[in-house]
C-alpha cells in the first residue's frame, strides 16, 4: 500500500514538471530553432530571404575580422564584468550571510529591490553621476585625481561598468545563498586550529564556495553576453557587442538571415564556454580528490 502511494507521488511530480518542459521546448528552443534555421539562407535584401540552403553568412562571419573582433569584444567585456562583479559581490555576500543582526534582512531586501530596477533607469543613473558636471567627476577633479572629466560613455570601460551594475545584485544574491550553505563552524574550527582569517578564507571558505561561484559566474557571464541596453547606451554607438550588432542588423539592414547567424554564433559561444567551464571544474575537483 505504502509502495503504491510512493509511485503516485512520483507520477504527480512528473506532471508538475510538464508545463515547464513545454514552455522551454516550445517558446525557448522553438524560437532558437527559428533563428538557427533562418541563418542558413541568404539575405536577398529588404527583408527577403532565399530558399536554398546557404552557409555564406557563416563564411562571412568567420573570415571577416570585423565580426570576429565583435565576438572577441563581447566575450572580453562579459568576462571582465563577471570577474569584477565577483570581486565586488563576494565580500558583500559574505558579510550579509554572516551578519547576526536584523540589518542582514534589510540589506538583502535592498539588494533585491535594486536588482529589479529596470536597467534603462540604472544606466541613465550611471550616465548622470559620471557626466562632466556629475558627482564623480566633481569629486575626482576636486581632489586633483583628474584634470578633465572622465567619461564612461563610448568606451569598453563604460560597458563593463554598466554590465556590472546590471549583474551585481544577482551576483550578491547568488553568492549569499552559496555562503549560507557553508556551516559557520568550519570557519571557527579553522581559526581554533590557528589559521589566520586570510588563510581560513583561502583554504576553507573559497574551496567550499567554488561550485557555487562557478554557477554564479556562469549566470553573470551569460547575462552579460546577451545584455543589450548597457552596451547600446554606454557604448555610445561605438562599442559593438554581438547583441548590439544583431539589433542593428535586424532593425536597420533588415537582414534576418545574417542576424540569425549572429544569434547562432552568440548562442553556441555561450554554450561552449559554459560546457568548458563545467568540464574544467569537474577536472579540478577530481584532481583535488586525488590529492586528498
Amino acid at each position, binding site marked *: 500500500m505504502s509502495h503504491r502511494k510512493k509511485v503516485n507521488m512520483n507520477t504527480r511530480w512528473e506532471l508538475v514538471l510538464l508545463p515547464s518542459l513545454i514552455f522551454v521546448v516550445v517558446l525557448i528552443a522553438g524560437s532558437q530553432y527559428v533563428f538557427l534555421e533562418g541563418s542558413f539562407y541568404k539575405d536577398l535584401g529588404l527583408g527577403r530571404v532565399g530558399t536554398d540552403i546557404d552557409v555564406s553568412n557563416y563564411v562571412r562571419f568567420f573570415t571577416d*575580422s*570585423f565580426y570576429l573582433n565583435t565576438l572577441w569584444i563581447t566575450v572580453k567585456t562579459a568576462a571582465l564584468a563577471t570577474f569584477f562583479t565577483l570581486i565586488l559581490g563576494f565580500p558583500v555576500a559574505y558579510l550579509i550571510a554572516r551578519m547576526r543582526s536584523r540589518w542582514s534582512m534589510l540589506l538583502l531586501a535592498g539588494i533585491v529591490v535594486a536588482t529589479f530596477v529596470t536597467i534603462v533607469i540604472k544606466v541613465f543613473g550611471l*550616465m548622470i553621476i559620471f*557626466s562632466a*558636471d*556629475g558627482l564623480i567627476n566633481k569629486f575626482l577633479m576636486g581632489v586633483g585625481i583628474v584634470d578633465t572629466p572622465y567619461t564612461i560613455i563610448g568606451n569598453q570601460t563604460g560597458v563593463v561598468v554598466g554590465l556590472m551594475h546590471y549583474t551585481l545584485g544577482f551576483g550578491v544574491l547568488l553568492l549569499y545563498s552559496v555562503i549560507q550553505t557553508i556551516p559557520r563552524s568550519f570557519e571557527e574550527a579553522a581559526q581554533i586550529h590557528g589559521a589566520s582569517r586570510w588563510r581560513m578564507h583561502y583554504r576553507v571558505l573559497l574551496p567550499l564556495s567554488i561550485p557555487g561561484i562557478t554557477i554564479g559566474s556562469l549566470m553573470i557571464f551569460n547575462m552579460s553576453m546577451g545584455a543589450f541596453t548597457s552596451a547600446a547606451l554606454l557604448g*555610445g554607438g*561605438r562599442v559593438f557587442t554581438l547583441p548590439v550588432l544583431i539589433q542593428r542588423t*535586424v532593425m536597420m539592414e533588415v537582414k534576418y538571415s545574417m542576424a540569425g547567424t549572429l544569434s547562432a554564433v552568440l548562442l553556441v559561444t555561450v554554450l561552449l564556454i559554459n560546457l568548458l567551464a563545467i568540464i574544467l571544474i569537474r577536472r579540478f575537483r577530481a584532481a583535488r580528490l586525488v590529492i586528498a
Partner: protein
Amino acid sequence: MKHSIKFNRTLLSAAIISLGVSFASVSQAGEFDGVTLKVATWGGSWKENIITKIAPKFEALGGTLEFVTGSPASNLAKLIAGRGKAPFDVMEVMDSQEQEFFVTNDFIQKIDYKNMSNVAHLQEGQYNDWRIASWHTQESICFNRDKFAELGIPTPTTYADLINPKLAGRVSIPDITSGGGMANFGGIAHAAGGDETNIKPGLDLIKQLNALKFWSRGGEVVTQFQSGDVYASIVHAGWCVRARNAGVNVATVHPVIGDKAVGVHKYGWLAIMKSSENVKAANWFLNEYNDADFQLEYARKSGVVPVNALALKALSSDPVSAEMLQLNPADIARQLRVDYSKVDKSVWMDQWNRSVSGQ
C-alpha cells in the same frame, strides 16, 4: 377632449423633432462609430501632440485612436515580419525609407485626396498618390554659446569647424540608426567632398570630429547639453529648441555644404497601410495632421517645421523658432536633401559600423 388631442399632437411633434435632431447629431457624431484607428508613431511629445489635438476630434466622431509606439525603422521591421499585415493603419515614414519599397511590396495603399482640404496648403512634391508629408526637420549644428565663448571658439559655419582640440570628446553625432542618422551622415559626406555613392570622405570627417558618442535618440542630446558632457551636437534644430527651453544657452547653425546647400532637410511622411480596414478614418487622420492649427502647435512643442504653408508663416512669429529654424521657403529650398535612390543602405551601415568602431 379636443384640447387634449391638440396637446398630444404638439407633444408628438416635439418628440419627433427632438428625435430627428438627436438622430442627426448622432449620425454626425458617429461618423467613425466603433472605429479604432491605430497609428504607428514615436512616443513622447510626438504622440502627446496627437493625443491632445487630434484624438479629441476623432473621439467626438465616435472613434478611438490607439498608438503603436516606435521608430519608423522598428515599425517597418514589424511590417516586414508580419509580411505586410501591419498592426497599425497609419504609419510615420522617413525620407530614408523609400516609397518604392513600400509600393512594390504592397505595404501601402493610395491616399484619397477627395476630402482633404489641407492639401491646398502643401507644396508640390509634398504629397503624391502614396504618401503625404507631415513635417520636415532641419538638421543642424547645435552649440553651447557660453562654452564656445569661454573657450574662445568662433561660431561654426561648417561641420569641419568642429574639428578643434578644445572640442575633443565634446561633440555628439547622430548614430546612423537614429531617425536623422542617414540624413546627417549624407550631409556630412557631401560637406566632406563625397556624396551618396562615395561616403569615405564623410567617414573620415567623422573620425576627425572625435565625438563623445553617437546618439540614438534626440532626447539624449538635451541631457548631454544639460550635464555639460557636450558643447556641440549635430542634431535637428528642434532638439536645439528643446535644449534652449531646458535652460541651456544654445544656438543653431545650418552648416554650409559645398557651393550650393546650407543645412540639411529631412521630411517625415504619413502612409496608409494596405491591410488597413479603416481607410476613411485613416484619410481623415492624414488631413487633420496637416491642419494648420495642429501643425503650428506641433512645431512649437517639438521643433519640427510645418509643411502646411499657413502654419509655416505663423511660426515666424515665434521668436525661438524664428531664430533657430530657417522658415523662409527660399532658404528651405537651399537645404540639402539626400537622394536615397542612390544610397545602398547596406553599404552605408557596414562602412559606418567598421569606421566608428575603429575596425
